[in-house]
């Protein structure tokens, strides 16, 4: 091991030299959104006015932010693929502090934020799940985001464009190059875009989605390149803190039905077991009409689990019941292992929706599950 690695590990294993608690090891996605050092940052406390394309760009007054794309694609030969790409921004200091630091040190390397990106391709035909991650500081121009034209990037991974967007992610084992055209306008999730996550005021995020995006392009899995077509889902969220201390993560569903409806639902999980009262979702009709779904509207039952290498159990088959319409679906991951075994570990993968009780496939979607406690 070379010398400088010591430095890196020191930097990255930040807890290694500091106090360690069982909950912090291993680090989970949910923890990115927790934490108590929020002074100096804006908080999501009241609904705000959203404006596009401005709000596609960054919100540096908030501590965390992400740009998130998932999609189900089909190749010309019928081969089915799923993909996800996420860019995470994490402020290193509140904006005012960052500005005053810049006055003291004019180095372009002085960064106000640190970035992480994740990408994955699931080959639903042969069960392969390939994934990768990137890290970077923001400056000098190594990672960042801008609104108009949209550009979100980390190294050579990028989402960019004005009217149509181009997604370009090239990793050693896989590549995703898609042209994205939204089929529906953005919808504001929660209370006009304010998505309350925890009980405390401010433990919330601003959250909007573009739930249906026509996607076309190329996906490479290993050495095989597929010409693909399909639907993507775009989620945007920014916050300073979101989760309460007693939350262990969430189960998040983004479902696209063949009849043109889209449904998002997240179940916030409490350490005590049940779903947090702030679990919620939204339904977008084929014409773009949005309808809020509360915890009482959706019922979720875990039917089958897949155990991750680190002992965490993730539900890979679910039954979802929509009490408002009386519909019931079986939601199943065709590939059980779509585990993101990265610095931040979670399960994220493509799912198929079957109508119950006739088990007829009626749509596809993406499921994300984060866990902190091993008992899952």
């Amino acid at each position, binding site marked *: *091991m*070379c*010398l*400088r*690695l*010591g*430095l*890196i*590990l*020191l*930097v*990255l*294993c*930040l*807890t*290694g*030299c*500091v*106090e360690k608690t069982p909950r*912090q090891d*291993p*680090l989970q996605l949910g*923890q*990115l959104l*927790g*934490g*108590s*050092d929020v002074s100096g940052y804006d908080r999501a406390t009241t609904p705000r006015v959203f404006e596009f394309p401005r709000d596609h760009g960054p919100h540096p007054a908030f*501590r*965390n932010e992400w740009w998130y794309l998932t999609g189900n694609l089909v190749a010309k030969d019928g081969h089915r693929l799923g993909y996800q790409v996420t860019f*995470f921004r*994490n402020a*290193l*200091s509140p904006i005012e502090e*960052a500005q005053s*630091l810049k006055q003291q*040190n*004019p*180095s*372009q*390397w*002085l*960064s106000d934020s*640190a*970035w*992480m990106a994740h990408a994955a391709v699931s080959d639903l035909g042969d069960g392969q799940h390939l994934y990768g991650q*990137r*890290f*970077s*500081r923001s400056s*000098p*121009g*190594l990672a960042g985001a801008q609104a108009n034209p949209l550009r979100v*990037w980390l*190294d*050579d991974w*990028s989402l960019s464009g004005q009217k149509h967007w181009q997604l370009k992610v090239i990793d050693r084992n896989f590549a995703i190059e898609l042209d994205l055209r939204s089929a529906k306008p953005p919808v504001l999730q929660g209370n006009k875009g304010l998505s309350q996550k925890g009980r405390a005021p401010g433990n919330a995020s601003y959250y909007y989605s573009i739930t249906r995006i026509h996607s076309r392009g190329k996906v490479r899995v290993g050495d095989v390149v597929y010409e693909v077509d399909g639907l993507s889902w775009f989620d945007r969220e920014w916050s300073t803190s979101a989760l309460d201390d007693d939350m262990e993560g969430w189960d998040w569903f983004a479902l696209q039905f063949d009849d043109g409806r889209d449904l998002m639902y997240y179940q916030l999980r409490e350490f005590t077991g049940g779903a947090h009262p702030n679990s919620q979702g939204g339904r977008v009709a084929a014409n773009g009409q949005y309808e809020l779904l509360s915890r009482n509207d959706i019922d979720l039952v875990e039917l089958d689990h897949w155990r991750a290498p680190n002992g965490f159990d993730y539900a890979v088959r679910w039954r979802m019941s929509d009490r408002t319409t009386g519909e019931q679906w079986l939601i199943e991951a065709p590939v059980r292992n779509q585990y993101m075994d*990265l*610095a*931040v570990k979670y399960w994220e993968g493509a799912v198929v929706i079957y109508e119950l009780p006739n088990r007829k496939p009626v749509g596809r979607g993406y499921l994300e599950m984060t866990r902190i406690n091993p008992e899952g």
Partner: protein
Amino acid sequence: MTMPMSLKSVSLLHRSSWGYLRRHPWQTGLMGLGIALAVAMVVAVDVANASARRAFALTLESVTAGASHQILGGPSGIDERIYTSLRTDLGFRSSAPVIRGRVRVQGRTLILLGTDPFSEVALNGVQPDSLALADAKVRINPIRVLLQQPSVVLSQQTAQQLGLKSSESFNLDIDGAIKSVVLAATFEADNAAAAEGLVFADMSTAQWLLGRFGVIDSIDLHLQNDEVEPLREWLPAGLTLIDTGNRQQRLMQMSAAFHHNLTAMSLLALLVAALLIVNTVTFSVLKRRTSLGILRSLGVTRSELIRLICIETLIVAVVFGVLGCAFGVALGQVLVRFVSGTISDLYFHLHVTAFLLDYRSIAKGFVLGLGTAFISSLVPAWEAGKSLPVQVLQRSVVESGWHRRLPWMLLFGAVLAALGSAWLQWPSGSLWGGFAALGLQVVGFCLCIPALLMLLVKLIMAVFGYGFGISTRMAVRGIARGVSRSGLAVAALALALSVTVGVGVMIGSFRQTVIHWLEQSLQGDMHISVRNRNTQSVPADLIDDLRHSAEVFQLRQIRRTLVETQFGPLRLMAVASPTPLVTPELIMASEANWQTRLQEDEGVMISETLAYHRSLSSGDSITLLTDVGEKTFSVLGVFYDYTSSRGLLLMDDQVYRQWWRDQRVTAISLSRPPNVSAELWHQRVAERLVPYSETLQWHSSEGIRTLSLALFDRTFTITQALRLLVIVVAMVAIISALLALQLERQQQYALLRAMGMKPGQLMAMVLTETGLMGLVAALLAMPMGVVMADVLIDVINRRSFGWSIQFYWAWETFLQAFALGILSALVAGLYPAWRAARLQPANGLREQ
């Protein structure tokens, strides 16, 4: 039947050995001491060499972080946007930016290494177990501190040495500017030695500390084979992509010659020790001729006797070899500092000063010591074994054998020396070839010494014989009669003295050459330079001001920097001067009109070392990496230079500025107008410079000379130390030999005392004898020393470093060696003389 007999005879023999060794602790001890010292020297030099080489490798590794390739730029560094482009446009994520500088902490110079912790993750292919993005408070604090605050990271060892704890603030001195930083964290390095002396910082902090914004020094890369060419094509002009493995190897090779030289010096000590061993063993054979004769008469075979002597020597060698190893390790710890210091001065700044104990070094020294002892004991052992039992009993047989062999030894020695000389004439010889030839000469010389000793003694007798008193004549004859021992003692001393003469004359000549060269090359009366060549420049307004000042007669402007060439990084000096860039005295060879061509053509002058090592001469060409890409310059001439063993390029300032986008001036030199008092002038110019003292330093020519010579002397500290060690081994050798010789004469002395010689007369006689031997050794050492100096200057030094050195007769070196020879012989004779004087005639004669 045979078994018990043989067992009995073996134990009898061994008991006889043990008895002898025990009865002669002085002899055994001195031989052991000689072996121990020689082994210690071999071990120490090897350990020091190995440590220094390891330090060199670690230093290189630590600054390239195990990358497969590096992108390097010109003197101004690399525009940091290139790095952004490399990652965001090309996606070379196994890449990391690096900026380097030197900082001082508590008076210690450390290497500041600025990099980007995020980039390093991918570069080193690690999957971090945790993530810097985590924002729980305890997690984010270190990364925030490191990325946004003036903070650094040290290895635990370095922090400990500096007495610093995490979160403590401390000051860094960067070329005189003091900046405060926080120790963000310490880390436990896998190889603590390699991290020693390194200060890690985030790129933003490092740029701020060094005051170098917008640039980085290099980009470390891990490239797949198929990525190399596309990247090379993409690189903007002025940047180069190099294979770090090749480069490290080349850099390491630079100091190889230096290490070989030290090893050769340590082997010389071994040779002196060999003479000592031959001497001691011969003495022990002579001393025991009675018992050995009895053993032979009792039926002990010749081979058993040879084995006995050899085993005896080997046992002493093993015991003292172990002691020598232990001493060598201790000595190595001292030497490694000198060796590393010299490498830092001559080749590459080493931030690592680790002491590495390589067991192979110890084994090497031990085996060499044992081998030398074994081989050295063979001759006397064979002598003891080959004689008939009755002959062994007679001492005179041994001496007459020696006398018979003297002409043959002389002839053989002369042939060896001649062979060595012929070998040295071989034009394309290697460094080791040079050492081997020198070795032949040395061995040949040693073989000649007993015969020469006899000749000289006879000559002295013939010329002065009748003028001497009886005791003096007896002393002179004593030398001749005991030539088996006196010859060896004189050889050992002469060899050691010739080493000190040879090395001393070489260093003295080198020093004189450098002094002469400094006089020629130091143009101007005042030399002003920036404190940091990488970041600072002599202010343009100051240059302008001085140029137009009536106080300045002439102004020379210099930019010193490193450029990449096909031979690796080389120093380049771009000069703007109203006088020729090189004075005619310093030119070895040149093209016609080199002066005008230097300004008009794209040509360079190269230093002698570069010309020698790369077989370049005027008319050839050299390719340099300029800011607009690679460019071939013709070599217009070769000049003498002693500042760099790697080589130096000299270029006209205008040509330099044309090819490099670099406006910096790193030094100027000023000449004072005629008829102005030097002292007053210096004072007045210095006053003008005071406002710039944060970035500039200035010296008079005399000051530069002093500094240069101090550096020169520091470089040779290690050589001087080894030279002293050889002398110490030789002292042991001569004391041992004289002691043997004199102790053996006890009966003779007793007889003389009985015949009425006074103790004082006897003492004088013994001292005359030893003093005479010292005189002869010193006389013989002079020509050999001169030959050795000549070989060191013309062959060894040239093949090692490529420098031309003028031979200077450093008389004080000869006088020192002369005095040393006589003095050490006299000192060695003191104890035997004292013993002889105190001898009770009756006791001494009892044996008779």
